[in-house]
Each structure stands twice: as structure tokens, then as C-alpha cells.
């Protein structure tokens, strides 16, 4: 899918579904002139980063270390393949973000294995937790490792390359019948965090569950995500990066670009195309074609959105 036109005022559900596409194991982002652009990984990104000045960062998501079911009996192995791809890049990204579900069952050994592989990238990694990272009895393994200097359940912000990054947590205190949840305390913090920032500062929000409503029937959305988006409304460039749904989906609304990254572990079905959002078993030969290469390019103040999808295999 390439050069898909999303129209002027938001995107219908059908359009969103049309734009959903399988792509690579990670997404490479570059900041040029303050505007983030997704270059996709990895082969097509190499050429782009060689010529693109500015800051480049990488997003990986949903590594589910410990997952060993038929959809991918070796999730640690495919994470390592993704990291090897990153290491093979001619231009080293400035850092990486991981949008959660590092582990499958929050076991100490799973966190250790994930760290052992991801650290081979020798990049700083900024994490946010997924619901699979808070499953240990005392809910402490994630916080012990990645919670330092964060607020609440693990939210924080930092600045890099002139961009303001905000990592949010929407996987705790979930209410029966509801979706992802940020909560009043975190929203108040976010409003305060953004106060006083110049509206020309590019903002990147990242969290595990999509902050926009992708498919509530499968819980793919955040109950109070709209509140967070209100706080960034006045900013000229806003990029919202999520995981959780194990597939690439993107839409643009005004100055806000929404994007979900694929998993490094296993694919999940397109919304409504299966009985459940659970792991999708595909032929072995096809798995890595779903972990292929995607370029997602967008420009601020343009309604056109281009997703160029190139599988690693086939």
C-alpha cells in the first residue's frame, strides 16, 4: 500500500482498516527539521538514514519473551533477529523505544533474556510497560528494572534532538468492560508536563495500548486516551506510537499522526477477521514475511500518508 490518501478530516474505520498492513520487525523514525518520519526497517531505511540528517530513533514492541506457543515457538529468537537487523544498520540510531510486552509472563528469567538480547543493540532503550510486564505476584520486576526515575506506574518524559518524548502507562487499573486506562493522576501529570512547552516543539507520545480507538470490541483503545490527546492539540507536530495489536496501523488527524508497530514475536489478526485477537498461527515460511520491512513516510501539514510495505522474505 502506497501513497494512500486519508482525506481531510480524520479517517473512517474502513479507511483505517485498509491502511493496516503487515510490515517489518521494527520501525525506524528519523527527525528531520523537527518532523518525525517513519522510515520502516530496515533495508529501505539504510539508504534513507545515510542521506537524512537529524536524529533517528527506533521503535520495537511486543517482544513477548517467553512465548513458545505454535504462533512462534521461539519469540526470543525473532527478537534477536530484529536486534541483529538493527546492528547491521550503517547509521546507528540515537536510541530505541520499546512500547511494552517485553515479556510474556513477567518472569525474572524472561526479563533477563530480553535484556540480554536487546542490550546487544548497545542503544539506550526507553521502555513503557505492557500488561504482560506486570504479571509477577509483587508487580516489581518491571519497576525494578525500568521504573527508576519514573512516576506512578512508570510514566516519564525526556527531550532528545529537540523533540519532547512522553512515555505513558495505560495497562494498570483496568476496569471491567473497559479499555486501556491512563487515570486521573497520570493525565494531571501529563497536562503539567506539557505546560510551558513551546507549541512548535514536536511531541512524541508513546504507550503500549493504542491511545486512539482502533477496535473496542477487542479492547484496542484507551478509555481516557482522548483526554491525553486534548493536551497535545495545540502542538504543531504530534506523533503517537503504540504497540499491543501486533500489526502496523496508521492514521493522521490534523497535526497528529498515530502509528502502531508490529510485534517481534507473533502476528495478531486484523480487527474482526478472527474469533479473537489472540496469536495468529501462520505457515512457518510466512511468519518472517509478516516480520518484513515497512517504510512509513509522512509529512507535517500534508494529508497524504504513504505506507510502503516490503517483506523480508518472499
Amino acid at each position, binding site marked *: 500500500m502506497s501513497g494512500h490518501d486519508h482525506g481531510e478530516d480524520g479517517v473512517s474505520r474502513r479507511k483505517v482498516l485498509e491502511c493496516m498492513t503487515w510490515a517489518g520487525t521494527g520501525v525506524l523514525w528519523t527527525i528531520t527539521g523537527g518532523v518525525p518520519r517513519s522510515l520502516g526497517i530496515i533495508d529501505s531505511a539504510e539508504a534513507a538514514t545515510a542521506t537524512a540528517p537529524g536524529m533517528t530513533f527506533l521503535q520495537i514492541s511486543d517482544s513477548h519473551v517467553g512465548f513458545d*506457543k*505454535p*504462533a512462534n515457538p521461539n519469540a526470543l529468537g525473532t527478537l534477536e533477529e530484529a536486534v541483529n537487523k538493527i546492528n547491521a544498520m550503517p547509521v546507528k540510531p540515537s536510541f530505541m523505544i520499546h512500547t511494552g510486552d517485553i515479556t*510474556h*509472563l*513477567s518472569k525474572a528469567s524472561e526479563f533477563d533474556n530480553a535484556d540480554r538480547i536487546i542490550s546487544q543493540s548497545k542503544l539506550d532503550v526507553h521502555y513503557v510497560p505492557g*500488561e*504482560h510486564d506486570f*504479571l509477577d*505476584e509483587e508487580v516489581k520486576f518491571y519497576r525494578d528494572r525500568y521504573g527508576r526515575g519514573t512516576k506512578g506506574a512508570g510514566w516519564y518524559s525526556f527531550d532528545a534532538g529537540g523533540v519532547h518524548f512522553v512515555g505513558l502507562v495505560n495497562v494498570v487499573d*483496568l*476496569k*471491567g*468492560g*473497559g*479499555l486501556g486506562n491512563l487515570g486521573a493522576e497520570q493525565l494531571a501529570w501529563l497536562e503539567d508536563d506539557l505546560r510551558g512547552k513551546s507549541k512548535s516543539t514536536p511531541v512524541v507520545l508513546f504507550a503500549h495500548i493504542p491511545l486512539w480507538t482502533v477496535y*473496542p*470490541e*477487542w*479492547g484496542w483503545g484507551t478509555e481516557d486516551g482522548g483526554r491525553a490527546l486534548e493536551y497535545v492539540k495545540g502542538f504543531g507536530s504530534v506523533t503517537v506510537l503504540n504497540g499491543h495489536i501486533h500489526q502496523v496501523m496508521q492514521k493522521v488527524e490534523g497535526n497528529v499522526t498515530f502509528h502502531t508497530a508490529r510485534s517481534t514475536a507473533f502476528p495478531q489478526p486484523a480487527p474482526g477477521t478472527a*474469533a*479473537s*485477537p*489472540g*496469536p495468529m498461527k501462520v505457515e512457518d515460511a510466512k511468519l518472517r514475511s509478516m516480520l518484513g520491512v515497512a517504510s512509513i513516510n509522512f509529512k507535517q501539514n500534508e494529508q497524504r500518508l504513504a505506507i510502503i510495505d516490503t517483506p523480508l522474505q518472499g
Partner: protein
Amino acid sequence: MKTLNRRDFGVAVAAAILLPVTTARADDTNMEVHIDNFVFQPPELKIKVGTTVTWTNRDDIPHTVVSAGKFRSKTLDTDDKFTFTFTNAGDYKYFCSLHPHMTGMIKVE
């Protein structure tokens, strides 16, 4: 002795197969809820006070069974079970705390 052992083994297997069927028929104070495809099945269960309900996760993804202030399972990996005995009448709404769109109800009379 070998033939005897084999026969004993056969009896044991037959007993193991028959036993759960027999108890299920004889004893309606044990009920089951399965988690399949991110759905509690059956989504609503009517039981009598004193009934024990066992939830079994048959998905490839972990789930929980949580009724606010009433009961809360540990994380159930594939094929893990959670059991709760209802000693008081009432309506027990519950959900999966990882996937809160998954909800169920136990009505205890």
C-alpha cells in the same frame, strides 16, 4: 505378573476415564467456565449457594478472573485453572484484568 500388571493398568485407565464423567453427572455443585478466544463460556452461569466454579484458560494468552472485592485469580497461563466456591447468594460480575472487555457473570441463588 506382567499380564496382571497390564490388567490392573487397564482397570486404572478405565476408572480414570469414567470417574470425572460420573462425578460431573452426580454432582452439580461443581461447574466449569472455559476461556476460549478471549470469551468466558458460558458468559453467565446460574448456580446454587455452595457451588464451586472452576475457570480454565484454553487460550494461548494469559488471562485473569477478577470480581472486585470478591475474588481474584493469579495470572492463568494456558490450561491453568482457578477455583472459587460461592457461599453467599448474589450477582458476581467479573472480568479479565488484562483484557477488561472480557466480562462474565455468576448468579448465585
